[in-house]
């Protein structure tokens, strides 16, 4: 049979809590081991056990990482979604199913391959049969795609590290399934995995763990957190790495961790840490940002450094807690009452998750303000490829902190909020130092930090704050621009959309469009973003939300003559962005 190599999508339908995650990761890692470019996405419910869950594995020599638009191989294990999973398939799809489910498989137009997975698993371990059954579809897939045995062994060992018994049992299950499939199914699959040269440098990692390591290397002194999906694994990764990486000579830790009573307290602790001269951080998701908003205004107005990572999930309200979105962008940018504006860092890769993890603290202390890290469930909780993290290229920037009387005396007209350098950033002293103490406050204050309701004092303070944040634009990460010479259409996008852009770009080029792309990596946006828009007559702002939040920000801040060039493609259904959906919408909006 003529084979299609390394270009297919596998969808595994199971129930939450049945141990299928191990099986799915073994499929993913075994192909990764062979050098097949793969990505995996876990679509899980807000539930510990019982509700349906899907895992999507995409193999693509072109490096496409969006979930494939069509499923090529469907594995069905979950009775509750059985019929619907089958119904949704295109003719010709390969279906692997557990015969022991005793469910009908009425798709004559598909290639349906059954295996008595549970009864076979019972032969290895009667007690564990329900969990072990999942390992049989791994063997089935391994047979169909020709996944190398060595790669499977290595992935199983990685999954059950150190548990010799589990490794042996699972390898036996996979091997039995492979033999069964070979005898009973034969060579029916036109898709195959083929080994590619694999860099020995690359590995897969979740964005949240990459941010966590970035924070560790950014010198985080205090993590306060309140559990919330999908950010909890970020906090837990920091907690995991502290003993290894942040131990002082006396054996004590250099980073305090507090599990807060709620998100309000978590934000307050970050504020306290920043005020007292430490590097504080918390991580949360949209609902947490809503709760933290009061403190966020205090960060801004009292000019206290701090970092909050928002791992976006689908809002509004409790929304879809285990699904992804870029729905918090405008909230983060302008959170809290009154006029506010915050720095937002938007990584698009796990490498940037690490980099922005450490940089966030430098920006926060340099600009004496709150800095948001903006991630999402897709980037944060799925595994992405990296060739290893680069050590911070710059020294820590602790900002304008006066630590000695001499430093204080050197400033002729010191005031906590006086702009002596003309860049909008004033000097600060720390509690405990005895140097020029003030009572910090969220009420109106003059340049010396004294309470004031004077209209001119208030007006000038607010103008200085605007100037200060505006001054960060070209210090923050510049956009990543991929420009076609004859590019007539520009696409602006951000964050985890990076994982779909290559495929979207290819689809648009196939339709005869020449597309340049600009990935925004921070707000307030870099001057290069404006120049990119200047160079293109039509610019589509593409994002994973309903209302076009970045589009709105650009419309508000760009010079008037550029606004007619802007188009918005904003779409969100909770799932990671599929390329075709966005490509079609881009065509629609430009032609419509």
């Amino acid at each position, binding site marked *: 049979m003529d084979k299609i190599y390394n270009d297919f999508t596998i969808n595994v339908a199971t129930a939450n809590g049945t141990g299928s995650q191990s099986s799915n990761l073994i499929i993913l890692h075994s192909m990764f081991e062979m050098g097949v470019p793969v990505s995996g996405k876990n679509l899980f419910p807000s539930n510990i056990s019982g509700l349906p869950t899907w895992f999507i594995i995409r193999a693509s020599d072109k490096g496409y990482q969006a979930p494939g638009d069509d499923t090529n191989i469907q594995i069905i294990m979950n009775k509750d979604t059985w019929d619907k999973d089958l119904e949704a398939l295109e003719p010709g799809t390969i279906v692997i199913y557990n015969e022991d489910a005793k469910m009908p498989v009425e798709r004559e137009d598909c290639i349906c391959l059954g295996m008595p997975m549970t009864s076979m698993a019972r032969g290895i371990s009667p007690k564990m049969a329900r969990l072990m059954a999942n390992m049989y579809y791994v063997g089935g897939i391994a047979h169909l795609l020709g996944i190398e045995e060595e790669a499977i062994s290595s992935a199983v060992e990685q999954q059950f590290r150190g548990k010799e018994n589990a490794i042996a049992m699972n390898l036996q299950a996979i091997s039995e399934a492979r033999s069964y499939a070979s005898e009973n199914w034969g060579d029916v699959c036109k898709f195959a995995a083929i080994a590619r040269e694999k860099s020995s440098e690359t590995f897969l990692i979740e964005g949240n763990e990459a941010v966590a390591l970035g924070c560790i290397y950014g010198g985080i002194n205090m993590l306060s957190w309140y559990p919330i999906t999908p950010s909890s694994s970020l906090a837990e990764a920091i907690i995991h790495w502290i003993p290894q990486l942040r131990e002082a000579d006396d054996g004590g830790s250099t980073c305090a961790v507090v599990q807060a009573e709620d998100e309000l307290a978590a934000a307050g602790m970050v*504020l306290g840490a920043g005020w007292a001269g430490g590097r504080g951080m918390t991580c949360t998701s949209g609902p947490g940002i809503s709760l933290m908003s009061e403190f966020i205004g205090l960060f801004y107005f009292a000019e206290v450094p701090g970092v909050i990572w928002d791992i976006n999930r689908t809002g509004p309200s409790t929304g879809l807690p285990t699904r992804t979105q870029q729905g918090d962008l405008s909230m983060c940018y302008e959170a809290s009452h009154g006029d506010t504006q915050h720095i937002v860092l938007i990584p698009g890769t796990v490498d940037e998750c690490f980099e922005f993890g450490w940089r966030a603290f430098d920006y926060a202390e340099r600009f004496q303000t709150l800095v948001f890290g903006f991630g999402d469930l897709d980037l944060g909780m799925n595994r992405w490829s990296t060739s290893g993290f680069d050590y911070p290229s710059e020294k820590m920037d602790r900002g304008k902190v006066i630590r000695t009387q001499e430093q204080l005396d050197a400033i002729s007209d010191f005031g906590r909020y006086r702009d002596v350098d003309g860049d909008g950033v004033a000097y600060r002293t720390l509690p405990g130092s005895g140097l020029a*103490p003030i009572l910090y406050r969220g009420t109106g204050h003059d340049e010396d930090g004294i309470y004031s309701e004077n209209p001119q004092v208030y007006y000038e303070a607010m103008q200085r704050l605007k100037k200060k944040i505006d001054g960060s634009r070209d210090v923050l990460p510049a956009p990543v621009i991929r420009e076609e010479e004859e590019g007539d259409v520009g696409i602006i996008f951000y964050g985890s959309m990076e994982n779909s852009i290559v495929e979207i770009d290819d689809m648009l080029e196939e339709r005869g469009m020449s597309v340049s792309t600009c990935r925004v990596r921070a707000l307030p946006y870099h001057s290069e973003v404006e120049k990119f828009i200047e160079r293109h007559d039509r610019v589509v702002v593409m994002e994973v939300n309903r209302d076009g939040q970045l589009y709105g920000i650009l419309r508000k801040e760009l010079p008037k003559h550029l606004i007619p060039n802007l188009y918005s493609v904003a779409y969100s259904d909770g799932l990671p962005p599929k390329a075709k959906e966005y490509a079609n919408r881009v065509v629609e909006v430009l032609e419509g």
Partner: protein
Amino acid sequence: MVKLNVLNLEKSEYKGGKSSLCPGCGHDQISNVIIQAAWENGIKPEGIAKMSGIGCSSKTPAYFLAKSHGFNTVHGRMPSVTTGANMVNKDLAFIAVSGDGDTASIGIGQFIHAIRRNLDMVYIIENNGVYGLTKGQYSATVEKGSKKKKGLPNEQSPIDLCAMAVNLGCTFVARSFSGSKKQLTALLRAAMSHRGMAIIDVISPCVTFANNDESYRSYNYVKSNDEVLHIVDYIPHFSPLSEVEVPEGEFSDISLFDGSTLRLETVSEDHDPADAVAALRAIHEGTRDGRHVTGLLYYNPNQPTATDALGLTDTPLMELSDEEMRPSLESLEKVNAGFRAR
């Protein structure tokens, strides 16, 4: 000759700005006691951090200890800001002022969790039973049947912050009255010598909205219904015991963390501050009889504080060098290699 404290500082070194509260406000008396206690205890002003939330009481850090940094935070959230500051600088002496609105309503969650962590701070509640800055609404600590100057009597049961603190295992719980300068000074000095969460609930009459005789928190009412548990005397660690007059009646001494002593002279019945049940009985009997029980209600020393439990390095984290905060290049190479080997 000007009097100097143990650090050779004048009392004026501990003063603050001019108060903008109503003349006669109990809070101003408390501010004066804070100045007095910090001076007498010889605490370095620069080593103190003044913390507060929002409300009349929370404005007062501007009126004492001008040489200390402070933070007038947001309503009810002072404990979390204090927690964060404490985490990165455990050497700061935190003196916090809050009110009954700030603590018993909007901030009750943070109050509870700060106690639960045994945050190392002095937490003063200036408790008048009304919201002053918004012009005299009842707060959640006001007694059932108490009536402010205008409007109907309060019909809801009060939240007793001291009883709550005792129940939560707070390591130092005291109640006093802004008009009892001697008692309040001794208790505050003892709180400053304590390591861990020290709560002093101070009845502080609101002269503008609730100083009428029908108010359980008016000067007249408190003066005639103050049930003193014991007479308190503070003996600092830097002053030899022999110089202090030994009382004629029964007394007991309590040792504080910094080596100072709080002497409790029995008034009628002996109150054992180590006995949480006795503390709760005294509070509840007082409530039943419409009386305010004042003194050191509960004391449970030598409990681990919020930072003790974390295994932190000795140096306050905000003093660490860049090298101590950023792991080495080699360590990152090891991390990368570890992932590659997975």
